[in-house]
């Protein structure tokens, strides 16, 4: 499959990588490391237990409280470069509206600019207006009114293409 004079072209050849992995599986190899000139192919199978231990344990641990669970902002960010996340700058209680009777500061679809107040977070009895600090369109609201939020808890998804 790999003709000598062609190997430069196809380090990234999924075909060849696949066949290498097949080999590894077939012979229970845990690691393959190939280098030539500028090129390198390094494949590692299994045996990663120790390194990956921590997350594994998290999974097995007693279900963490919502506040903790929500703390990982990984998911939403993956939605593409034009999507920005407004995160909580503090620990406290999230309020979607200035007072119980009034409307929410923003809804899905609301156009916002950097200084638009998108919510209030109460911390130590103080009500803090939270500005968007990004402009665009609200595409998702990630927390409920009066929900507890911790540091950098994702609050809103904003499409910056406006």
């Amino acid at each position, binding site marked *: 499959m790999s003709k000598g004079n062609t190997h430069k072209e196809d380090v990234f050849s999924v075909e060849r990588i696949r066949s290498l992995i097949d080999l590894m599986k077939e012979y229970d190899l845990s690691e393959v490391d190939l280098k030539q000139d500028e090129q390198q192919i390094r494949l590692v199978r299994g045996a990663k237990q120790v390194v990956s*231990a*921590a997350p594994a344990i998290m999974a097995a641990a007693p279900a963490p409280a919502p506040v*903790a669970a929500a703390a990982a902002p990984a998911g939403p960010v993956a939605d593409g470069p034009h999507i920005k996340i407004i995160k909580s700058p503090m620990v406290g*209680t999230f309020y979607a509206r200035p007072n119980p009777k009034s409307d929410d500061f923003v809804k899905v679809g609301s156009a916002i600019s950097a200084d638009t107040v998108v919510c209030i977070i109460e*911390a130590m009895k103080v009500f803090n207006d939270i500005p968007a600090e990004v402009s665009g369109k609200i595409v998702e609201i990630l927390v409920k009114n009066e929900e507890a939020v911790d540091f*950098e808890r994702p609050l809103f998804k904003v499409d910056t293409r406006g």
Partner: protein
Amino acid sequence: MYNRILIANRGEIALRVIRACKEMGISTVAVYSQADRDSAHVRYADQAICIGPAKSIDSYLRIDRIISAAEISGAEAIHPGYGFLAENSHFNEVVRSSEFDFIGPTPEAMEKLGDKNSARSVAMAAKVPVVPGSDGLITDEEHAVRSAKEIGYPVLIKATAGGGGKGMRVATNEQTLRVALQQAQTEAQAAFGNAGVYLERFIDRPRHVEVQMIADLHGNACHLYERDCSVQRRHQKLIEESPSPFLPQKTREEICEAAKRLIIEVGYQNAGTVEFIVDQQNNFYFIEVNARIQVEHPVTEMVTGIDLIKTQIRVAAGETLPFKQSDIKLRGSAMECRINAEDPAKNFQPCPGLIKSLFIPGGFGVRFDSHAQAGYSVPPYYDSMIGKLIVHKETREESIACMLRCLEELQVQGIATTAAFQMKVLREPTFVAGQADTKWVERELLKA
């Protein structure tokens, strides 16, 4: 009793408090920085709240966020652990004014004892010996000579603006004093732009002995005997033990009673430690009070059988002490080695990083308090302690043998630790004879 407690700390002490709470049926709230997301105290708490990025100044030292975390989690009390905000009387006040219980002394006691001078006067009021010294700065040579007579030779001449031993001089008699005084003043002027100096009794090869105290809100106070922490490197404790290997029984009773007088004098509540230095003639002098639970508290738990963290929580909640002084007996010998991620070969420089594999010693009379495990990465942002190895045996000789066995068994792959150095210390005749002083390690074991 509380339904929910927030632990404003991390690492092994956060885990220690969580363990006590779980055994007492109290729900726990952990706070954590983004660097500790996968840490054991986060994993085992009933709730965990992120309070900021890795740097302590932005997380574990953020009073506002810790209070908010207590508010949104519905905690009733806050345990500060040690370090971070544990002895910050302002934090203590904010916690209480936010209507949470602070599991520790009152802010007033904390402040009084936090200041060296006011602490010294509290001690003197309680008839607790302090290191003799000149009242205030030396005005002239004759004043120096007079106070030196009162203090008793040898005396130490200290620069008021100084610190870290800079510009210090020892004088063994009036002659040397007169000479040394001028040198010291000139040095001080040059070094700190302030020639002010004062005198203090010079203590040769002092030993560090501290007394564990616990008091409730109803005026009951007990001492839980002493810990000897003379084995230090640059004021960092390496090995702690109880009972002290050199203290005569009579002095033990005296020093413990002195500590109790001081604690009662200042109306202290909850757990605290009174630190003394003991000279070669076994005279002891008050140094300071640590107004918190200490790293080495397990040593006392082993020899007294009393759970200090649970007792802290009970008295904070208003319960009276569950024991009288006469109930407290010293049983056997306990010793602790702090296992730090530091490289003795590189002047004990911290070496955070991934623990690739770990074997934890076990067996009869062995306790290992740690948040670490294989796969855990020691973050570079906080102290380098990865665990505390504690042994409890009938005799000190057995404790040393057991500790050596355990340090040999302890296998930490991936990062360097202090374990090998502690084995070296445990084999030193001076240590075995119980004759270490606070400068011994630097003087004898680390001299180039």
